[in-house]
């Protein structure tokens, strides 16, 4: 075997702390290495050409590229060696950037380590063999999880592209957080007027199947062929019969259920349609508050319902769907502001969250668009907005900027002046972050045209006083203390990952960060893809975002899905397990340990043997460790290959 080694400078990224020429010289002494050179940028066009040239001129059988992480450029170099006429699996990479040059400053130690990593790669490559992928059919259907604006956009774009879409929404209506907003920044246009038509499109689109009040229970399979189990939660109302007339809501004697759509401002009947524009417009019984469920007698809604849709005995139902791709757009939740004890959130009735204030401003809200204090229903004249509640604050474990709070606060300050012309708004802020198109102009308008007084500083505490709230804070630009007598305090609470995000990520087998946001495959170049093929991200599930970015990501993930589905067949990864039938004794241990059910027992000439179902095998190699005979081996990561790497590190 003739091996070529290419040591990349990566400009000064590697060359700065690794003597790449020395690494290349050292590589020449490794077994079967017949060519070694250092290249400036191996991933660039000339760099790849250099590799291809060397393969052709020196007749190389395998290539080691020592450069950045294989998670970045392995596909690039695999394509390059393929262009040179080799099998794409005759390539190994040594990660001398992320694992060497970027983490150590000692040039000698780094050069040593880099050469060792090349040696590991060479030893592995010597035992590589060409692998050929097989192709398989794909199911051209997509599952979108989450019916907020990002999920709606992704679903509509996929459906318009001719794909069948299954949209799963946890609550009883799609619309997400955007449906709760009164106006949107920086155009101050009506949120439900721009979202409403899209929601109707979802309901009417022939290609979209909507499961509202449902959750994804289980995801099995792989890109192109996922099997998804969806739990349709019991709504106790037959949605086929329910017309959404709302008669049940009017007559329901219990009004104590949480009005989730109005952010718990006021109560809601135990049988409820969340809002007039809900899609689907169907009622759901909240069993925790329904007298029929608590006391066993009531049944008013069943009597009143003109279509006889009420069914108190309804059970959860699990449906199965086959899809080829998944878009996770599960959105965000609001930070629990009661963690800031000094603001009195949760204790003082007139200290509310921005989303609650949004409902107070909204004409479809609990007050019909008249801004009233929750405590006594009076119109507030002085409104204090406090920014960064649960954003950019390490003390509550939310060090990140939620990104949209500055803007919605400016919007609410403007709307306050519109609603109550003789009012005065104060905004306590840390920094104003308004980087979007027309955003900075918008915040300036709040200050200059609408007279909102922006105070740079934190609020230290809020004390109730004579029916008002004394807000004490610092004005750090003036260098003085400031006290404001407020009628209403609005907290600009930050975003956090939606409840249950980590659990969903585990079902989807994608990564999530320590705050529960789903991780993209690459923060810059693969922003809507995940490390699990066929699973894409959109909206705030990936991190806090405003509406334009969420919509853009929804469309981006739809484009990715359509791109995936544009292929006739997908290629399977050949790095899967293979059974050596001579060695296999048919003990069945691999069958029981495989997490994917990819191994089954077959009858081979009268003997029981294990067989790997190639399209189901994901290539984890758990079976290879389990097999007492060493009969099952993971291609490209065989025992011999890994042991060769170990030996390369230990043997002298």
């Amino acid at each position, binding site marked *: 075997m003739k091996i070529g080694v290419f040591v990349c400078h990566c400009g000064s990224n590697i060359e700065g702390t690794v003597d790449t020429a020395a690494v290349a010289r050292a590589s020449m002494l490794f077994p079967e290495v017949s060519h070694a050179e250092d290249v400036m940028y191996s991933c660039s066009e000339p760099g790849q050409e250099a590799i291809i040239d060397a393969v052709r001129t020196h007749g190389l059988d395998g290539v080691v590229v020592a450069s950045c992480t294989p998670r970045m450029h392995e596909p690039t170099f695999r394509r390059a060696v393929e262009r040179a006429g080799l099998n794409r699996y005759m390539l190994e990479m040594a990660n001398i950037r*992320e694992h060497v040059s970027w983490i150590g400053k000692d040039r000698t130690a780094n050069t040593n380590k880099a050469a060792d990593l090349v040696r590991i790669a060479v030893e592995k490559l010597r035992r590589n063999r060409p692998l050929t992928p097989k192709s398989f059919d794909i199911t051209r259907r997509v599952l979108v999880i989450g019916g907020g604006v990002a999920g709606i956009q992704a679903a509509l774009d996929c459906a318009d592209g001719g794909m069948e879409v299954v949209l799963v929404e946890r609550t009883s209506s799609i619309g997400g957080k955007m449906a709760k907003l009164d106006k949107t920044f920086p155009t101050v246009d009506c949120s439900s007027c721009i979202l409403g038509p899209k929601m109707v499109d979802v309901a009417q689109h022939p290609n979209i199947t909507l499961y509202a009040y449902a959750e994804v229970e289980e995801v099995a399979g792989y890109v192109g062929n996922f099997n998804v189990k969806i739990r349709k939660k019991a709504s106790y109302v037959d949605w086929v019969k329910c017309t959404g007339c709302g008669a049940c809501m009017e007559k329901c004697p219990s009004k104590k259920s949480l009005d989730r759509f109005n952010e718990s401002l006021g109560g809601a009947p135990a049988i409820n349609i969340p809002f007039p524009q809900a899609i689907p417009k169907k009622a759901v019984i909240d069993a925790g508050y329904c007298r029929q469920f608590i006391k066993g007698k009531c049944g008013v809604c069943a009597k009143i319902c003109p279509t006889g849709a009420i069914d108190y005995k309804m059970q959860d139902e699990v449906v199965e769907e086959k899809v080829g791709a998944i878009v996770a757009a599960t959105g965000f939740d609001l930070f629990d502001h009661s963690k800031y004890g000094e603001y009195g959130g949760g204790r003082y009735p007139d200290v509310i969250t921005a989303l609650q204030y949004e409902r107070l401003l909204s004409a479809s809200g609990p007050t019909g668009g008249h801004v009233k204090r929750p405590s006594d229903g009076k119109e507030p004249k002085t409104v204090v907005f406090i920014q960064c509640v649960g954003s950019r604050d390490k003390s509550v474990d939310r060090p990140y900027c939620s990104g949209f709070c500055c803007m919605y606060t400016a919007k609410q300050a403007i709307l306050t002046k519109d609603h109550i012309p003789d009012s005065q708004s104060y905004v306590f802020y840390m920094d104003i972050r308004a980087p979007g198109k027309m955003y900075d102009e918008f915040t300036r308008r709040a200050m200059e045209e609408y007279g909102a007084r922006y105070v740079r500083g934190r609020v230290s505490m809020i004390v109730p006083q004579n029916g008002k709230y004394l807000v004490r804070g610092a004005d750090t630009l003036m260098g003085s203390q400031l006290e404001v007598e407020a009628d209403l305090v609005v907290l600009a609470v930050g975003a956090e990952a939606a409840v249950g995000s980590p659990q969903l990520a585990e079902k989807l087998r994608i990564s999530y960060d320590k705050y529960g946001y789903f991780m993209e495959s690459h923060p810059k170049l693969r922003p809507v893809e995940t490390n699990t093929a066929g699973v894409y991200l959109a909206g705030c599930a990936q991190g806090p975002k405003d509406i334009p970015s969420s919509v853009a990501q929804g469309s981006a993930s739809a484009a990715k899905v359509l791109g995936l589905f544009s292929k006739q067949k997908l290629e399977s990864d050949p790095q899967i397990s293979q059974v050596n039938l001579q060695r296999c004794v048919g003990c069945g241990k691999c069958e029981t340990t495989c997490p994917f059910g990819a191994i089954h027992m077959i009858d081979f000439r009268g003997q029981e043997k294990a067989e790997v179902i190639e399209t189901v095998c994901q290539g984890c190699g758990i079976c290879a460790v389990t097999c007492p005979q060493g009969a099952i081996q993971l291609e490209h990561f065989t025992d011999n290959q890994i042991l060769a790497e170990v030996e390369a590190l*230990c043997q002298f």
Partner: protein
Amino acid sequence: MPVLAGRELRIVGFLCNWCSYGGADTAGVGRFTQPTDLRIIRVPCSGRIDPLFVVKALLGGADGVLVSGCHPRDCHYASGNFYARRRLEVLKGMLPILGLEPGRFEYTWVSASEGQRWQHVVTSFTEQIHTLGPSPIKTAFGLGMTTAMSAMPEGGKHAAA
């Protein structure tokens, strides 16, 4: 680097591709400085790591072995790290029986986003191995640690440890 201080020991790391290898990458991207003793072998899943690989490395003269995978319940392959945990826990108990110091082997969980945690894991494990010193197996069999560079005729002066 306080740990390195002119001498380097040999630590073999087995990292799963999805979480910990990614975490090590994240640490690199974040330029979180680490000791250079560790050499990483990439495997698809921590469930792919045969405990015998660890034994092989330690018997071969490695001064320490570090295994890292995805956090429990966060495995790309659903349950690979649970298999790894069970196997490696058994191995941990067996190392003294094999005459190997248990402190030379450690397994941990680092996710792809935890660059800082990876830096901490590498630094503290390397410190632990330096406290234990060079592997007694190496001394017993008269093995001298060389590096790829020191195999070179003119590279000998770079040889560490």
